[in-house]
């Protein structure tokens, strides 16, 4: 049973640029998928359409049984609650500390304080930041900030975690640390789709790889296949 089903998706922006042509994709529950390709090949557009930041011009996108392409703006939050998103620039609130940044995602749903506390500490433990809960983002390294962003993305226990170049701003060692956190989350059953330029990481991790080129799926490598081809 696939968690994501993309059929004949085309995306043309208002300025006339076509980002994606006739994309078909199936991603199963629990998979870890890399999406790679050169700049402007449509990677980010694809991710944006999965969490319904963008709407496809034509075609259908089904995420966890919800037809996201047809979702009205007012109902988008329903699908967002099932999806976690992580970005290259972390998107943290600098005036709030680590704990508050993560708790923020639960507070807006009106959860009791005790439950928020327990869940935030649990997830901070998972990303290895339990001892920095009272620090502010500006006091953290890039890798630590990204881990806060990951903690916030998974606090609602989403079925799907979308990562848009999460290691783009980080050095190799830190990138690997982040990858280890993501692999850990994947092991717990969360499906992960990660857009990246870092082919070194992709080759190392032996996961499914979707290669996009000029808005089309050029190749869909099964686990291990990409490494084999690159090496």
């Amino acid at each position, binding site marked *: 049973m696939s968690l994501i089903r993309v059929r004949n998706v085309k995306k043309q922006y208002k300025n006339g640029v076509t980002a994606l042509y006739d994309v078909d994709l199936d991603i199963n529950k629990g998979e870890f998928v890399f999406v790679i390709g050169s700049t402007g090949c449509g990677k980010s557009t694809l991710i944006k359409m999965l969490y319904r930041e963008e709407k496809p011009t034509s075609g259908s996108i089904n995420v966890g049984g919800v037809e996201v392409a047809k979702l009205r*703006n007012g109902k988008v939050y329903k699908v967002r609650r099932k999806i976690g998103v992580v970005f290259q620039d972390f*998107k943290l609130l600098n005036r709030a500390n680590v704990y508050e940044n993560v708790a923020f995602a639960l507070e*807006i749903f009106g959860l*009791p304080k005790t439950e928020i506390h327990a869940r935030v500490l649990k997830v901070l433990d998972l990303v290895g930041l339990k001892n920095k809960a009272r620090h502010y983002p500006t006091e953290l390294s890039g890798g630590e900030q990204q881990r806060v962003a990951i903690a*916030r993305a998974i606090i609602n226990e989403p079925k799907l975690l979308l990562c848009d170049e999460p290691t783009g701003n980080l050095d190799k060692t830190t990138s690997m640390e982040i990858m280890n956190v993501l692999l850990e989350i994947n092991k717990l059953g969360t499906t992960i789709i990660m857009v990246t330029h870092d082919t070194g990481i992709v080759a190392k991790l032996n996961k499914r790889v979707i290669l996009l080129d000029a808005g089309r799926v050029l190749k869909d490598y099964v686990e291990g296949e990409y490494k084999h081809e690159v090496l």
Partner: protein
Amino acid sequence: MKFFRILGRNIRDSFRSVFRNFALSMASISCITITLIVVAVAIILSYNVNSFATNVEKDVTIVTFLDVDITPEEKDDVEDQINNLDYIETYRYESKTQIAEEMMKSSEVFTNIMKDWDEKDSPIQSTFLVKVTNIDLIGEVAQKISAIENVSAVKYGEGMVEQLVSVFEIIKKVSIGTVIALILVTAFLISNTIKITIFSRKREIEIMRLVGASNINIKIPFIFEGLFLGILGAIIPIIATVYGYLSLYKQFSGQLFSPFIKLISPEPFVFLISGVLIVIGIAVGMFGSWRAVRKHLNI
């Protein structure tokens, strides 16, 4: 419970936001304060003018002078005709003897002149004092009375009453106009404050959307912020109204310049105005922020 927790969080965030954008909030609060002070002055003025006008209207009387040599039968006839007219509230008869007695009571000069007059010699005319139900129709009624046989003249302060009524109308209209204009300006200013708040919180809004906050969830804190600005802006005007009007009332012992112009008693008047001010403050604040949210929060 969940609802109250979300509400609590929204209120907390809105309150924080008021102080985070302190300079901007102060601009809006000052604007609301000034508007509400003007509103308070306008209300105090127009209510007092209204009450004064009502008192004046109550006191305006048509004095109907009867012919000097009128017979009792003719007097009864005039009384019947007045009684049959429309818009008559009350009327009272004063005979020439009664009038003479009253005049003599008021001054010795009158007593010296009038003491020897008897009923027939007296040049004083008996009168009917007529009050009408509607001050606007006083001219019409006076005209009808003057047309009655054996009525020699009618007096009701012609011209003066009409002028007074029209001055009251102008004061009322000007104060209502000023209040409406000021309210609109304030709503616009609040709308601007909230617009800047929205821009300064773009990142937060983006994150809220990402983690699945509903539109209402995102919009409500801004509406609350407008509400707080309204309440904070109403504090000074309320204090100024309560203490200002109380001390004004005491200073002038409840009347302005003459016993003729009575001020409205401060209680419950000032509390009613305070209520009106806070309601206007909240309404203007919420309307302003709702306008900004609708225009600038495209989600």
